[in-house]
């Protein structure tokens, strides 16, 4: 019995040896880290991110890029952060150990924020394809960037659309008390109140709820003409159904968390005419966008889930900065990254002083004939 711990410790050490790293000496190998939840409830989104990143790296290798006179081979180091803040800092440290030149990730704001500190401490540029919390780029780290409109930008666009284009005056808001839903809803509220609309009701639910009748009835009492939900599709779908069942006669609007095929499936008939948004310009309108979608589907045998195009852009922006600086050394190409202007498949990418996307275009969509149809793009150049 006494030896059990010792035995376990040895097993442990044996089980997880450091992976050997052989590098071909003739060409320069540059490692790019990727971090997203590859297991757990958000694995499908994490895999999607990994796929997008991988495609960009394969493309770059196929093109044969030389930086500073040397032929460069890019290598993907993918880590699983399980959407957990603790694990995120662990994998961030692992990526640093693996000498990556830059990191694409993480997926969630809750993981991106603590991991950013480790990348910053080690001077490694980080581009998040999907973290939208404003706090991420406002921690004072020079290494933190994102290629996605943040909550403030998206919430603002949604608010402008609701108050101006749809002419809503009495607005109700529900949020799911997650970092994403609450952040987006707060920015939405700021935008609509600035445009003179009134928030008549602000109710809350959780990301595990299924019954929204009580809050929806409370909303109904205030007779709003538009209801905004800050949250994900899994709650948005049932919510749309219950809105219909309660004969609550409002226009229903969500952010990118609700603008998914899953929402339409869960909401059934109630999905009709619901509004949603997605940062960036519709893929089919960007050069190379439609082609990317087609290639993605043929390579991974599934449609794009959500953020793969942003990951693709993130890698390309990073490589473009390396080319511009003529170096893959993080310290040398970081200034070039901050000053980059790159035409991606989701938008023209330029960063502001914080590392946020300049302009931050957001496209509004509506469910028509069982499909999300783009209506209008707000912001961007």
């Amino acid at each position, binding site marked *: 019995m006494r030896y059990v711990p010792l035995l376990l410790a040895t097993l442990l050490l044996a*089980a997880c040896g450091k992976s050997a790293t052989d590098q071909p000496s003739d060409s320069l190998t540059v490692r790019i880290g990727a971090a997203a939840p590859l297991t757990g409830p958000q694995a499908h989104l994490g895999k999607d991110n990994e796929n997008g990143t991988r495609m960009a790296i394969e493309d770059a290798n196929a093109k044969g890029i030389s930086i500073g006179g040397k032929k460069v081979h890019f290598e993907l180091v993918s880590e699983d952060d399980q959407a957990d803040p603790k694990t995120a800092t662990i994998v961030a440290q*692992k990526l640093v150990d*693996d000498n990556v030149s830059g990191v694409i990730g993480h997926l969630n704001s809750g993981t991106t924020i603590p991991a950013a500190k480790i990348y910053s401490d080690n001077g490694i540029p980080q581009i998040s394809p999907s973290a939208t*919390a404003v*706090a991420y780029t406002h*921690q004072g780290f020079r290494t933190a960037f994102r290629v996605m409109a943040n909550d403030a930008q998206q919430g603002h666009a949604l608010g402008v659309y609701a108050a101006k284009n749809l002419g809503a005056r009495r607005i109700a808001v529900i949020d799911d*008390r997650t*970092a994403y839903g*609450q*952040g987006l809803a707060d920015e939405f509220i700021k935008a609509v109140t600035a445009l003179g609309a009134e928030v008549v009701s602000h109710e809350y639910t959780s990301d595990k709820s299924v019954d929204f009748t009580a809050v929806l009835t409370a909303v109904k009492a205030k007779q709003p003409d538009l209801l905004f939900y800050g949250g994900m599709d899994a709650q948005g779908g049932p919510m749309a159904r219950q809105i219909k069942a309660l004969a609550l006669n409002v226009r229903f609007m969500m952010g990118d968390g609700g603008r998914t095929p899953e929402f339409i499936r869960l909401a059934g008939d109630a999905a009709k005419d619901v509004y949603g948004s997605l940062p960036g310009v519709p893929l089919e309108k960007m050069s190379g966008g439609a082609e990317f979608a087609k290639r993605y589907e043929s390579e991974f045998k599934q449609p794009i889930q959500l953020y793969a195009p942003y990951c693709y852009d993130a890698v390309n922006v990073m490589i473009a900065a390396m080319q511009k600086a003529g170096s893959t050394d993080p310290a040398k190409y970081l200034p070039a990254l901050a000053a980059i202007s790159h035409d991606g498949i989701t938008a023209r990418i330029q960063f502001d002083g914080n590392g946020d996307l300049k302009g931050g275009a957001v496209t509004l969509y509506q469910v028509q004939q069982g499909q999300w149809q783009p209506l209008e793009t707000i912001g961007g150049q």
Partner: protein
Amino acid sequence: MPNAHEAGIFKRQRRRILLAAILLVLPFAVDGILGRGWLRIVDFAMLYIMLALGLNIVVGYAGLLDLGYIAFFAVGAYCYALSASPHLALAFPQLFPDGVHLSFLIVLPAAALLAGGMGVLLGAPTLKLRGDYLAIVTLGFGEIIRIFMNNLNAPVNLTNGPQGISRIDPISIAGLSLNATQRIFGITLPSVHLYFYLFLCFAGLVVFVSQRLEKSRIGRAWMAIREDEIAASAMGINTRNLKLLAFAMGAASGGISGTLFAGFQGFVSPESFSLMESVMVLCMVVLGGMGHIYGVILGGLLLALLPELLRHSVLPMQQALFGKTIIDPESLRMLLFGIALILVMLYRPAGLWPSRVRRRELSSDERPDETA
């Protein structure tokens, strides 16, 4: 005879020195062989061990099933987050224009006290409750605390709600920041190493306190309560105060662990303090061996490292065998925990590494029916 006795002491002492030496070089070994990422995992494992030892006082010694234990971890974490970050500047710009930046050495005891106080607060009304009711009530308390942390960003932005608090000051002791590489006596110590030694000190402290408590009057009284409360109070044990003390001690340990967590991580948000974490810590205590310090340490170590091990073994194995992932290691981990809980309770109720006393108690425990 005296010789043999002396030899025994000598042997024990030698073992202690050996253990200390191993622990001292451990960070360098882990860093050298596995990499710094793994050292970070070990650091987190130390935090979990502290949590498990704290819960062991409540569950293992006093026999009070607490399903909301992670709340005290959260209290400690938020305590440090609020008193060592720019966050409070948002809520009280006049009072704290730059936020609050108290020293770790001041916050730590305060956090331990506060968490301990919360423990008493939780314990006081629930004293009369029987085991299963107590479990549910503590679960409720744990959830309530999490829900409040998730929502106290309005009307006054106290906790920043679901967004969490970022930019927490790294821990620094006597002007020595643990966030940077330091050179001490000519040895280069990177940040993760420094944190390891800090956590080691506190884990050692918790172990020491637990050990002393276990052998003291208090510890024996707790165990008497655990075995038979009525008999214990008939023997003149003040069951009320002792139960409260158990809650307070356990909670204080959780609070210390939480403070360290916040300083190490630099970011706290309510999602780190979910019910599942409470269950995890409980698993550590139960699987390792309720009431046995070394068992609990083993449990904590196993369960904190298991997810990593699974991830590095199950995924490649499935890829090699079937060419794709059939069972997600994350769900496999939970499945294994669940099965382990059942099996341990059925076949080794005293845990994987039980204490001798407890083993004796449980093996001769064929009490007649008492459900009536």
